[in-house]
């Protein structure tokens, strides 16, 4: 049997009870002194009486006092009946998957239900119990056993986590057994069985799963029209999971943009089948775009009903071309109506005084500057610099005939969906006089990412930070790239990609932005707490919204949306056929009985008083 009350409270109760018993004897009237000739006869009477009646009277008195004391102690200590109380070491694993945020038909969420379950387990356990609170995200639970109060505080700090892999933690390893043997603690898993369908053998499972209807956005993107980078369209994917047959199957989509622009669609996705929809954002101006869906009935997961995106601005671009006379570059750049071009001869002074306030982009068609300019760079010259990708040796550039070796420009695998290359046809593109970048040096540890080339030859590389840049490994004029039909589109995209505000789409949860230093603001301009993690900054993006990260002359728009088909499928639970665990009784049995116990103790005290005055007790 455990006790619901704190040890200090129990000790106080014991002292109080002892005090009551002592007072019971103190409050009895003092005997009246009587001088008698001799106690001889009285001694014989009392000795005889003590041998006989006094034993029973003493026993009755003792029993009454003990019962009264026990009742008081029980009333104070709140004992926990066997079976209703848990004790010892208890490991509670909380399912913190996104599906736990599902709203229940009866009100509240699965997480609320789970937290209440755990709260009752904690409060219903003995005072000496120890708890280890873990979550399925693996990084927010504790690492050691703690007391009840600390566990309750830790529970308040938990909640559904987005953007993480959820799995049942290795409890045996945490408990130190490590051998797979049964851990020396009671393990309880509270969840809905959606993300973490199974628990190890021996783990008590408390299900909070209840099916809930839901409709969610599983994909949302705003992208320029391939034919006109100045215009945008939105692609949205909607999925619907009805809970019953009375569902109308209608999902209303509303897309809102800056300046009051909006678009509305009525969609009828089949249950459980994603429905893609492309919506031209005609009339939408640069700025945030928000998509919201609504269904006729209750929606289980509000987080997937909203998705955010951002339309970059299309302002006039101030471009500096650094190179020798190059009519090709000048003509190509001047063809873009957004470009305001200026030309500078190559030389040490060409890159002096470059800053983002007077220039948006510099195109280098000659030797690169030693230091990376303070504005985005489109490099298509020769020579090397520390900030550029390293080049291979001369023999790799191709045979040394007069025309030079023609090298095809294949799109590096996995980069076909890069904003620069998406839907472009570069199958016939080739180049000569290639001073190829070392493809092997581009990758995880390099800021440059290879877009065109193969595993050895790097022909086009792009970097994101600290400023976006593009670097061709060959002169544009020595390739047939300008002759390709999609070259104007490639150049236009390159100008946009290099100069547009950077937009990153992230899921809900902890978001990371490649930015050495900076601050993060929400859509209302309030700064969001963030922290540096190496060359990145991390912040909490648990709510679907747009965030703005700014620092080092860069601005990154972060569109945080759930966009998780698994999270939206709230009812895909392995425990769907099981009834949800009933809530443990609040508090303890004894805590509800304490007034009765206290009354019982009072009655016993009165009985003792009456019995004493009737000489039934001593």
């Amino acid at each position, binding site marked *: 049997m455990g006790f619901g009350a704190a040890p200090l409270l129990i000790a106080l109760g014991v002292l109080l009870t002892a005090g009551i018993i002592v007072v019971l004897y103190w409050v*009895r*009237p*003092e*005997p*009246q*002194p*009587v*001088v*008698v*000739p*001799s*106690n*001889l*006869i*009285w*001694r*014989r*009477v*009392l000795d*005889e*009486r003590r041998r006989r*009646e006094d034993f029973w009277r003493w026993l009755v008195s003792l029993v009454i006092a003990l019962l009264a004391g026990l009742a008081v102690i029980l009333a104070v200590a709140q004992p926990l009946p066997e079976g209703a109380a848990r004790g010892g070491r208890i490991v509670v694993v909380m399912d913190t998957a996104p599906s736990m945020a599902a709203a229940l038909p009866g009100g509240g969420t699965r997480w609320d239900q789970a937290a209440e379950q755990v709260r009752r387990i904690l409060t219903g356990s003995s005072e000496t119990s120890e708890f280890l609170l873990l979550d399925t995200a693996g990084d927010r639970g504790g690492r050691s056993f703690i007391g009840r109060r600390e566990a309750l505080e830790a529970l308040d700090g938990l909640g559904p986590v987005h953007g993480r892999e959820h799995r049942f933690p290795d409890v045996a390893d945490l408990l130190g057994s490590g051998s797979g043997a049964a851990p020396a603690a009671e393990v309880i898993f509270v969840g809905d069985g959606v993300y973490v369908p199974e628990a190890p053998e021996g783990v008590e499972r408390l299900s909070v799963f209840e099916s809930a209807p839901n409709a969610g956005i599983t994909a949302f993107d705003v992208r320029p029209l391939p034919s006109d980078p100045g215009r945008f369209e939105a692609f949205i994917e909607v999925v619907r999971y009805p809970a019953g047959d009375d569902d109308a199957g209608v999902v209303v989509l509303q897309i809102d943009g800056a300046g009051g622009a909006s678009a509305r669609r009525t969609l009828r996705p089949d249950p459980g089948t994603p429905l893609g929809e492309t919506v031209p954002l005609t009339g939408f101006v640069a700025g945030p775009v928000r998509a919201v869906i609504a269904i006729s009935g209750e929606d289980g997961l509000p987080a997937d009903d909203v998705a955010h995106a951002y339309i970059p601005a299309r302002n006039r671009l101030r471009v500096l071309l650094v190179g020798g006379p190059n009519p090709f570059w000048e003509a190509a750049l001047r063809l873009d109506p957004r470009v305001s071009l200026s030309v500078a001869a190559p030389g040490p002074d060409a890159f002096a005084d470059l800053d983002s306030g007077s220039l948006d982009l510099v195109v280098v068609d000659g030797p690169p500057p030693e230091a990376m300019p303070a504005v985005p760079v489109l490099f298509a010259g020769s020579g090397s610099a520390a900030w550029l990708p390293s080049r291979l040796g001369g023999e790799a550039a191709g045979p040394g005939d007069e025309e030079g070796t023609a090298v095809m420009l294949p799109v590096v695998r996995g980069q076909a969906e890069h904003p620069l290359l998406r839907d472009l046809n570069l199958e016939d593109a080739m180049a000569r006089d290639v001073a190829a970048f070392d493809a092997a040096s581009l990758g995880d540890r390099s800021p440059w990412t290879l877009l065109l080339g193969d595993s050895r030859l790097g022909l086009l590389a792009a970097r994101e930070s600290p400023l976006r840049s593009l670097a061709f490994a060959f002169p544009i004029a020595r390739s047939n790239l300008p002759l390709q039909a999609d070259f104007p589109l490639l150049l236009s995209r390159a100008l946009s990609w290099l100069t547009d505000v950077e937009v990153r789409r992230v899921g809900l949860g902890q978001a990371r932005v490649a930015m050495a230093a900076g601050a993060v603001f929400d859509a209302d301009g309030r700064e969001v707490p963030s922290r540096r993690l190496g060359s990145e900054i991390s912040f909490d993006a648990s709510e679907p919204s747009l965030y703005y990260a700014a620092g080092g002359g860069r601005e990154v728009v972060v569109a945080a949306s759930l966009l998780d088909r698994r999270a939206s499928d709230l009812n895909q639970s392995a425990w769907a056929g099981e009834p949800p665990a009933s809530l443990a009784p609040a508090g303890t049995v004894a805590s509800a009985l304490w007034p009765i116990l206290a009354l019982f103790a009072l009655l016993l005290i009165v009985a003792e008083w009456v019995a004493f005055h009737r*000489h039934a007790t*001593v």
Partner: protein
Amino acid sequence: MSNSQTLFDNDFMERLEYLKLMATRMLPSRHRGEHRARKRGSGIELADYRPYVDGDDTRDVDWKAFLRLDKLVLRIFDEEADLPVYLFVDRSASMAFGSPPKFDFARKMAGALSYIGLMNHDLISIVWYGRKIDGWMAPKRGRNQIFRAFRFLDAGDTGGATSLAACFRTFFGSRRKRGLAVVLSDLMDEEDLLGAFDACRYQKHDMFVVQVLTPEELDPALPDEALLTDSEDGSERRVRVTPRLLDRYQTALAEHQQKVEEYCSRYGFGFCVANSGEPFEDAVMAIFKTDRFIR
């Protein structure tokens, strides 16, 4: 007890005259000692039989009766002798209780017995005792010794504990003429009371025991919660007085008295209980009426 006023005033003397008249009728008048002990004396007149007990002189066993009855029976002869009367008056602290005090009551009884004895030319000796013999009046005979006895009794005072055994061992340790020992006491003696009687009995003395108790001792009236303090040794006992407890007290007192009475009856001694709340002459008459005192 106050000594400023004598116990033996005119009223007492008048009562003694009444007692003398009554005693004259009850006691045979002889110039020799009037008391005849139920001990084997020097006489030849067979007075009675009684069962043989350890310590009896086997010369007095009736062997013919033994052959007939297969029981040892002792023949008792009257001793026609001048036997002294020893009055042992308990002067312990417990005797100071009561209204009148038991001590005064006992002294009056002793005075009355002395008066009657001296009037009948008996040898009268009075002994104060507590834990030891605190004083005694040597045996006196003759009517002219009455006031000497009264003065001796008047001078007595209470105090201390009681030990009749120590007293008897001291008193009968010396050579004493065989006689009648009259004990006037409340018999609240922690020590071996019957052992004390044995000391007297072994010396062939006759004995009469008068237990003087107050009405409060016979029928206690105590508060519900009482802390009883012994007047002699100061010991305390806490009691919760209930009717049942009082019944047990009465029973224990009766057992105490019965034990003494059985002893006395067994050896032919006299025993009676005197209530100090009643007139002392009634107690004296009650003594005379017992066939254990007067033969």
